[in-house]
């Protein structure tokens, strides 16, 4: 089972189970470092329900993490603007030429 858990999750689990002494004593509470590590899993909706809940619980009370997550969303929005770059007209012309040549070879009766 463990081998299928992602590296990130494994690290998180290590920390939760072994290394940290959470100030509130509640082992399932996340802190800001966890948010940074888990943000992609969160945005991809891949967190297990309990982890998802802990994540949102922490974020609700932490302006630093709120801003961080918002920055991540803005980064994605920026990436989306790179989606379509105009093709050089010559490129489209060349490809059309390619297509027409192929077509006349394939379907000479047209």
């Amino acid at each position, binding site marked *: 089972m463990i081998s*299928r*858990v*992602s*590296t*990130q999750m494994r690290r998180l689990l290590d920390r939760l189970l072994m*290394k*940290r*002494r959470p*100030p509130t004593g509640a082992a399932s509470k996340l*802190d*800001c*470092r966890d948010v*940074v*590590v888990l*943000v*992609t*899993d969160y945005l*991809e909706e*891949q967190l297990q329900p309990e982890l998802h809940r802990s994540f949102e619980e*922490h974020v609700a*009370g*932490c*302006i*630093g*993490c709120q*801003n*961080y997550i*918002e*920055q*991540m969303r*803005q*980064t*994605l929005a*920026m*990436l*989306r*603007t*790179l*989606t*379509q*770059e105009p*093709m050089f007209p010559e*490129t*489209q012309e*060349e*490809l*059309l030429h*390619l*297509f*027409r040549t*192929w*077509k006349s070879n*394939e*379907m000479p*009766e*047209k």
Partner: protein
Amino acid sequence: MSEEMHHPASSLDHSDLHQGAGDAQLAGAGIPETEVLLLEKLRNGDEAVFVSLIGRYHTPMLRLAMISLPDRSLAEEVVQETWLAVLQGLKKFEGRSSLKTWIFRILLNIVKTRVQREGRSIPFSSLSTFADESSDEPEVDPDWFLPSGSPMVPGRGLWVSLPHNWSDVPEERLLSQETRACVQAAINTLAPQQRQVIVLRDIAAWTAQEVCDFLSISEGNQRVLLHRARSHVRRAMEDYLDGGKQI
């Protein structure tokens, strides 16, 4: 799975194109119905379909090619070659994968061949193997946070400096050419596999499943790569926009 052509190849008028049993069979095997229609039209020489395809895929194809072939004109050549190979392979394409995946696999193969031929030093094998890629960037920068074991500060947790609220940044600046250039530069410095994943997921809007199938990587690995890539780009954007964090 065999393919069945129901319409004479010479028919140019496809306004009455309808699906026969063979198309349904093809559709049932995993290629979506709309793609079946598209494929059919393409095979029959529909220029409008070809134009829409090249328009739709041009950017991601070029970006993907440029990961291994940074020379843009070389990358453009490779994209051209890909389209030629696609047209020549149309007859034999069985629709076992989606048209999109098939096109991009051809691209990747041609890129690989070109890389080998050009003798570049980028090891292409690193692009398709499972890799827990090392990066000189820590996943979490320890400087951002109070030392381990510190109590969380109410409202701001462990952050030493709060990340800025970007909704305060005017939109013209956030989406400006300069910011775009910064993001582009950040993408260019990503490790190749991270770059592939972010290009396909966040720029070309492929689903996680499509990326995993295409790159032959696990869902978990895909997410780690995506996470690292996004973290790197976010950081570059932050460095550019902020200059410094507020306390």
